[in-house]
Structures are given as C-alpha cells and as structure tokens.
C-alpha cells in the first residue's frame, strides 16, 4: 500500500511489527543457548534453525494479519456508519421544514417523470405486440391534395395492390362491422371483421384451435366461416373445444366456427374483435365503396419509403385505368404504430417533455435547498472540525444525511408514481387501457439517479468546502463567512427554476384557453339529456318495408313512455365515431364531377323528428317532414358548409343532386346549421340529410330526448325493443353527453396533467426563491442590523430585500417568456384556435408567477424588517 495512504488511514505496518516479533524470538532463543554455554555464533545459527523457514512463516502470518485488518476495518466502518445514520436522522428531524420540502420536491420530480414516462413508454414507445411489428404497415387511400394518413379502400383496389406490389411479403384486407348473434343467450351485437388469409401472415397469427381462413373461403359465394377471439370463446362457449366446427346464428344466418384466435391476441388496432369472418369477394362491390383497411408486411430489407414509391406508381396506374373512382387518389403507406397511436402520440410526448421540466426544476430546487442548508451549517461543521472530527468523517456524515434524504424522497417519489400511473390510466386516452403502463427501469434509474445525484452532490458540497475552510475564521465570524461566493450561483438556480416554471405555466394556460375555446364550439346539436343506441335490423328478418314498420312502432312506444320529449332515428350519431360520408357526383344541370372535385358530406338518413329532437337549427327553407315519404318526390336537407361547397353563393333551395345508390335526383328543400360530427375540435365536411321513408335503411340508431338524465332511460329502451322483437339486440347505448366527454378526454387529460405540472413547478420555484432570499436575509442580519442602527427605516430594509428577489423574478420571467415563445410551436398539437404567442395568455401567466414570487420574497422581507439592531450588534 502507498505509505501516504497508510499514514492517512493510520494503519499500523504489520510487516515491520512481525519482523520485530520474530527477531526478538530468535535472539531470545540464542540468548538461552548462550546462557547454557554455547558460543554466540553457534547459538544464533541453532536458534535460526529451530525457527525454521522464516520467510515462509512471515508470509503465512502476514496473510492472516491482512485478513484480520480488513475485518477490523469493516466492523469499525459499520459502527461509524450506524453513528452517522443516527446523526443524520437527528439532523433531519431538527429541521423538519427543510426535510419535508426537500423530500416533497424529490418525490414530485421523480413521481411526475416516472409516472408519465411509464405511461407513455408503455403505451406508445413499446413495440406493438406483433411479431415483426416494425415491418407491418397500413396501406390506405387518400386524396392527393389532402395530406394525412391513408384511410380505407375498395376491395377491388386492394386486390390490385396485392397483385401488383413488389414490396410486401403479405397483404390482407380487414373491414369491420357488427352483427347480431342470436340463439345463445340474449341477442347480442358483436363487433366482427371480414378478413382475407393475408391478414394471418401479416400479423403472424396461428389459431389456438382449428384452422385459419383460406383462399378458398374468399371466393364469391363461399359459405360463411368465423374464428372467435380467445376471450369470446371462453365467455360465450365456455372454452369448449367441441364448439369448433359448430354453427352459430349471426344476422339470422348460420356461420360455422372454424377456429379460435390465440390468447391475448388483439386485432390490428389493438381493439379486440371477437369474431373474424371470411371476406368473400363480391364482383358487384365495385371501386366506389371504400370500406376495407389494408395491412401489409414489408419484405425484409424493404423500407416504408420504398414501399411508398412502389404504391405511388401503382396508384398512378390504377388512376389511369379507373379514373372514375381512382382519379386524384393515392395509396398511402403508414407504419402500423402511427396508425394505431395516431394523434395521441404528440400530446403524450409533450407531456413527457413537461414532466422532464418538472424533474429539472426539482433538481434545481433540491440543489438550492441543500446548498442553503449546507452553508447555514458551516458553523456547525467548523465546530465539529474544531472538536477533532476528521475531514473525511465530516464529509461522510454530510453524505449519509444527503443519502438518507434522497432515499426518503425517492421512496415517496416511487409511491407517488404508482398512484399517478393509476390515475393516468383512468383519465388518459383509451390507448392506456389497451397498452397498460410499464415502469421503464431506465427511466426509473435516470430520474432517481438525477434527483438523488443532485441531493448527494449538493449535500456533500458544503462538507467539502467546510473542510477546506479556515476554521478559526468561520468560528470567529459566527458562521457567516461564506455568504458571497455562492450566492450568485444560487440566484441563478432560482432564476432557472422560475423560467422553467413559467414555461410550464404558459403552456398549461395556453392549453386551458384552448380547452375553453373547444368547449365554446357549438356542436350544432343539443347534447344534454339525449340517449342513443344502435338498433340494426338484420336483412334476413327485415326487408325495407318491415324495417320501416319496426322503427315506426318503436318510435310510438318510446314516445308514450314517461319523461320522453322526442324520439328520432338516424343512420349516424354525431360525436360517436360513426363515419358515413358520401361524395356527390351529379348535380342537376351540371356536368358530372369526379375525384376530389366532388363535394362530400356526412350522410344522415333520419326520421323527420331528428331536427327537433337534436335541436338542429333551420337556416332557410324547411326541414324534412313526415310527408316526405315513399310516394313524394325525393328531397334532401343540407347544412351550410355543404351548401357552400356544392353551390357557392347560389341559393341551394330547389337545386337537385343524385344521392349515391339512387337513380333519381333529390331536391334540396332546406339548409340547416353545421354539425360537428367528428368532435368539437375536428373538421367535418358538412351534412346531407335524407328521409328514412324515402331511403329505407336497416342500420339506424334511436335518439331519445328525455326530460331528466338520459342515462336512466336505457332500461326502458331495452324493454321496448324486446317487446317488439325478443331476438333484436341493441348496442352502443350511451348518452350524447358521454360521447362529448369521450371526445374531450385527451384534451382534458393533457390539461389536467399540464396544469398539475405547472402548479408543482410554480410551488417549487417559489420555494426555491424563498430559500435564496430567506438565506440571504439570515446571512446579512448583521449588515441589516447596522443599517437599521444607522437610521435606515424598516421599509427601506424590506425594499432592499424585495428588490433583490424581484430582480431574480424579472429576469427569470423574461427568460421564461422567451423560452415559451421559442418552444410554443411544439404545443401546436394541444392548441385549438389559440396562438402560442397569445399575449393575453402569456402576460397574465408571467404576472401570476411574479405575484407568487412576490409572496415568496415578502416573508423573508418581513423578517428583515424585524431585525433588532441592538440584538444583532451585541452579537449572537
């Protein structure tokens, strides 16, 4: 061992000790022999011989000594550690305000980061649960001039893609709808998908039981077969393998169950579709009906960009070959993850950034707190050093205290993270339910490391400095010796905290204003006290005449029920994720339009009471009437937006257009206000309303306007339907208010989280500022006392303290505003009709920060006012 270190640790030199001991032994032996008359030389030789191999025994003994030393040191170390921990506990308990603030700061920083990161990485950063998930893409059609993700396509196009592409190892069609399952228990609406064999290859699905769908199942006229999901198989069939091969009644037709999907497997978009049916090719489908999602597996080595080029070429060829439907259309290749997560990803990444800011503020705060406390203790440290505590010893005591604090803070932080994760999953977008959060060990280590690292570094710093400091100087000056040097550093930390906090405050204020703007949007329909439910009548039992009768009878029954104001039927319900748009090609007196030139609208097939039941406002003309029946000329009502798109400034009333699926022209009889079909903050092209009496439809939803809370009406509705047809299921029973809430869910979630972060950041920054100012006042007590003695008014003294604080606040706020303006653009995903540089948001946010900071400074300023000059000048 290096001699210097040995001296430092005061380890006795075992080697020289042993040498002396052995030398004594041999000499003593020789002395005995001489006493008995031996010649001294011979005696020495004889004694050496009797001792044996001296080197060997020395070596053996030294090994034992070294082990002994090591054990002794360990025991001593453990003993002093125990003392240090006791000392640290006492120290922390003596300063409960500091301990609580520091622990809460750590807990908030760690809790926020770990929770948000856990949720986000669990939901959207983890690979999707498919083999080769990174090679799976969605191929969808979109208009060339409308950038965005690809949508659905026609089966004819999809089959052409399958034949023509050179990029995909497999390609499959997937289209979703729902069917009535009867004959088991209560009639039930089941979400099903039509799939082609390619889907099994794309998603690498091997049925747990039975067989997959084969090419022979997809030819025109092939019998219906189905695979059921594992969960459905357990719930409905009790997991009985004998069910495979049996038939069930779906839409009153027999469908054979041929297999069971593997346990835990979820469909392409992670939504469990209980049944997969064979897609059967229908030559009459044509290219106009775009209802198929296409999923494909990239060949190994082929990138999504290469596949996109391939599909671009194919799209051009198809557009040239089938201009009527494919003109201006292109096939877009999107990664599956982008399709599944879609628009939830950006807000979540933003929240991630916000949580990182909270962690940074927490780290700055904990550093500040510990530095302030450390400097405040310089006297204590000096006293301990004077009493003989070694430098290393003091440093270790500080270290143990900081480590204990970090452990408490981290423990609380993790507990907070677990609680926050539960809340996030409950409040957050639905993706969290599908992809439960995981606590990422890297994130855990990082945030705990960052926060605990700050605690340790800044907990240790005063000890390091304290050890180097001039002992007598510190003692003489009463522990006030260290004020100036690091004060600027701490002010900078407080300033950074304030700036970061302001960024969070402005962000959440912008998001809050956006939320208010969204809420202020008129959906175009009334949402209070409206219940809706799908009542889709199967073709096998209801031809168009019977379905009209059924709906009419149901309307009568419901209207007679107590508390019902209005009843209407509609083919789609606003805000409820229906998607039924039509594009109009032929207008009376105009050449047919094609491709992107055709105006598009949401198709609402409704009963006349719809407009009154949903409070859809008439602008001009008239709404649909009961007299618009099968014997009357076909009519339509459109909204203002569609009217403008189709007719410009011309009066739409009296114009005619051909509704797809019909051969005759419908006359437009009225214009109503626009309805936000896809949510308050989403665009909708406009609406086209036609009468169910003239366009018989078997897939209608009932809407009931009730006097009180609509949610209670579900049971009455179910009874009314059962009375009319016991085999008829109803599904998607919900209220309009709930549908609206679901649409606001993501925004509300982002706002809640951001708001919470902003509050936390504000509090932490205020605490940080308070720490700096309060400490400054303590350090300058003597100076303040002298000033007071020399006649400075207490106002002047308070003003001095406030000025120092407000300088930090002003600079911090300015920096924060600049950063907010610079980073505002990344907020775009969360903003709605609010500019990121909206002064009416930024300035009040800065003012709020300043106000809170003022309070944080006022407390120490008041203390400064009360400094008693006599007491101070007399000494401590």
């Amino acid at each position: 061992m290096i001699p210097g270190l040995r001296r430092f640790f005061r380890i006795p030199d075992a080697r020289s000790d042993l040498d002396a001991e052995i030398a004594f032994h041999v000499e003593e032996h020789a002395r005995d022999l001489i006493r008995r008359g031996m010649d001294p030389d011979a005696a020495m030789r004889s004694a050496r011989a009797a001792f044996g191999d001296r080197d060997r025994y020395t070596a053996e003994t030294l090994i034992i000594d070294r082990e002994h030393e090591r054990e002794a040191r360990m025991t001593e170390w453990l003993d002093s550690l125990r003392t240090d921990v006791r000392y640290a506990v006492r120290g922390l308990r003596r300063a409960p305000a500091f301990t609580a603030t520091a622990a809460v700061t750590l807990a908030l920083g760690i809790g926020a980061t770990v929770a948000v990161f856990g949720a986000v990485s669990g939901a959207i950063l983890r690979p999707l649960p498919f083999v080769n998930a990174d090679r799976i893409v969605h191929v969808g059609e979109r208009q060339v001039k409308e950038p965005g993700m690809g949508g659905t396509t026609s089966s004819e196009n999809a089959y052409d893609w399958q034949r023509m592409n050179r990029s995909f190892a497999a390609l499959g069609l997937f289209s979703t709808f729902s069917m009535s399952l009867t004959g088991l228990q209560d009639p039930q609406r089941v979400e099903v998908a039509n799939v082609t064999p390619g889907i099994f290859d794309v998603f690498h699905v091997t049925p747990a039981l039975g067989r997959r769908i084969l090419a022979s199942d997809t030819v025109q006229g092939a019998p219906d077969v189905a695979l059921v999901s594992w969960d459905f198989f357990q719930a409905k069939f009790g997991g009985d393998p004998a069910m495979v091969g049996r038939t069930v009644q779906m839409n009153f037709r027999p469908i054979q169950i041929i297999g069971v999907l593997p346990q835990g497997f979820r469909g392409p978009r992670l939504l469990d579709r209980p049944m997969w049916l064979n897609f059967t090719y229908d030559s009459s489908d044509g290219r106009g009906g775009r209802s198929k999602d296409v999923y494909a597996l990239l060949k190994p080595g082929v990138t999504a960009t290469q596949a996109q080029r391939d599909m671009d070429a194919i799209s051009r060829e198809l557009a040239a070959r089938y201009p009527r439907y494919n003109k201006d259309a292109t096939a877009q290749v999107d990664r599956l993850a982008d399709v599944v997560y879609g628009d939830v990803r950006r807000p979540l990444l933003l929240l991630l950034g916000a949580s990182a800011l909270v962690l940074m503020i927490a780290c700055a705060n904990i550093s500040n707190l510990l530095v302030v406390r450390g400097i405040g203790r310089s006297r204590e440290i000096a006293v301990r050093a004077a009493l003989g505590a070694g430098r290393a010893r003091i440093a270790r005591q500080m270290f143990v205290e900081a480590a204990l604090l970090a452990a408490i803070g981290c423990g609380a932080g993790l507990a907070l993270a677990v609680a926050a994760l539960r809340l996030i999953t409950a409040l957050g977008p639905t993706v969290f339910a599908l992809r439960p959060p995981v606590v990422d060990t890297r994130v855990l280590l990082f945030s705990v490391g960052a926060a605990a690292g700050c605690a340790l570094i800044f907990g240790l710093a005063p000890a390091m400095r304290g050890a180097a400091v001039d002992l007598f100087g510190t003692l003489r000056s009463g522990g006030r010796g260290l004020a100036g040097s690091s004060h600027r550093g701490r002010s900078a930390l407080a300033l950074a905290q304030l700036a970061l906090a302001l960024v969070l405050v402005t962000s959440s204020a912008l998001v809050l204003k956006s939320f208010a703007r969204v809420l202020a949007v008129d959906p175009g329909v009334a949402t209070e006290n409206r219940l809706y439910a799908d009542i889709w009548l199967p073709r096998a039992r209801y031809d168009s005449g019977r379905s009209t009768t059924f709906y009419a009878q149901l309307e009568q029954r419901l209207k007679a029920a107590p508390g019902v104001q209005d009843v209407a039927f509609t083919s789609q319900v606003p805000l409820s994720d229906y998607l039924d748009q039509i594009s109009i090609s032929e207008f009376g007196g105009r050449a047919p339009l094609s491709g992107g030139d055709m105006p598009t609208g949401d198709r609402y097939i409704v009963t006349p009471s719809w407009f009154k039941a949903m409070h859809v406002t008439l602008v001009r003309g008239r709404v649909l009437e009961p007299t618009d029946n099968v014997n009357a000329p076909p009519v339509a009502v459109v909204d203002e937006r569609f009217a403008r798109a189709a007719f410009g400034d011309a009066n739409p009333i009296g114009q005619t257009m051909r509704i797809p699926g019909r051969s005759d022209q419908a006359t437009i009889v009225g214009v109503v206000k626009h309805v936000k079909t896809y949510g308050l903050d989403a665009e909708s092209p406009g609406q086209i309303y036609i009468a169910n009496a003239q366009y018989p439809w078997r897939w209608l939803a009932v809407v009931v306007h009730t006097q009180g809370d609509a949610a209670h009406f579900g049971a009455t509705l179910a009874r009314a339907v059962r009375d009319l047809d016991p085999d008829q299921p109803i599904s998607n029973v919900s209220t309009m208010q709930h549908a609206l809430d679901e649409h606001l869910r993501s925004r509300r979630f982002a706002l809640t989280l951001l708001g919470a972060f902003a509050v936390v950041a504000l509090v932490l920054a205020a605490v940080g500022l308070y720490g700096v100012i309060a400490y400054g006042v303590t350090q300058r007590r003597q100076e303040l006392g002298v000033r007071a003695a020399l006649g400075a008014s207490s106002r002047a003294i308070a003003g001095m303290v406030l000025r120092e604080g407000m300088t930090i606040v002003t600079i911090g706020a300015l920096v924060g505003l600049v950063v907010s303006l610079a980073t505002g653009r990344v907020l775009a995903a969360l903003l709605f009709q609010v500019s990121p540089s909206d002064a009416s948001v930024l300035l009040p946010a800065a003012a709020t920060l300043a106000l809170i900071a003022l309070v944080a400074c006022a407390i120490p300023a008041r203390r400064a006012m009360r400094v008693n000059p006599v007491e101070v000048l007399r000494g401590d």
Partner: protein
Amino acid sequence: MPSSLDLLKGTLDLLVLRTLRNGPCHGYTIARLIKERSGNDFLVEEGALYPALHRLEKKGWVESEWGISDNNRKAKYYQLTPLGRAALKIQIAEWERYTRAVAGVLQTA
C-alpha cells in the same frame, strides 16, 4: 529427529491456548514451554507458532500487546481473552473425548 511426532492438525492451537492459560507470555516463551512440557517430542518448527498465534488473535481468542521483556527488550505479549478461555475449555473436552475414543479402539483390537 526420527523419533519426534508430527503434530496433528489444529493441535498446535490447543497447545498454545493451554500454555497461555497460566498468564501472558511472548512467542519464544510459548515455544519453549511447549517443547519442555512435551519432552521435546513434537516435530514442530518454532516459526509455525506465529501463524497460529495471529490466527487465534484474529478469532479473538487471544490478544497481544507490546511490552518489555525480562531483559528490558520490546516484546509482543499474548494473553487469553475470555472468549479464548471458553474456547480452550471446549477444545480440551473435545480432545479428551477424541483420545479416549482412539484409545478405546486400540485397546480392544
């Protein structure tokens, strides 16, 4: 010394402890006493004593201290600790059981 006995493993520790029972002594004295009391019958180099002593010290059975010898020289003295005293008692009992057992077998054979 063909007539000398090899020392059984662990026996040296026992002899050292027993020697120290009468009071503290330094290494040479221990070696001398063992030699005398055994009638010079053990084939053991004196140097072997030191690993044994230091091992006992590590176990906490003996403790050492530098002192002044009869002839006024610095010498390291060893003495039994209470723990060592207890250990010695157990070891003696075990040794006696062991020799009785061996003797019993040898006599009946």
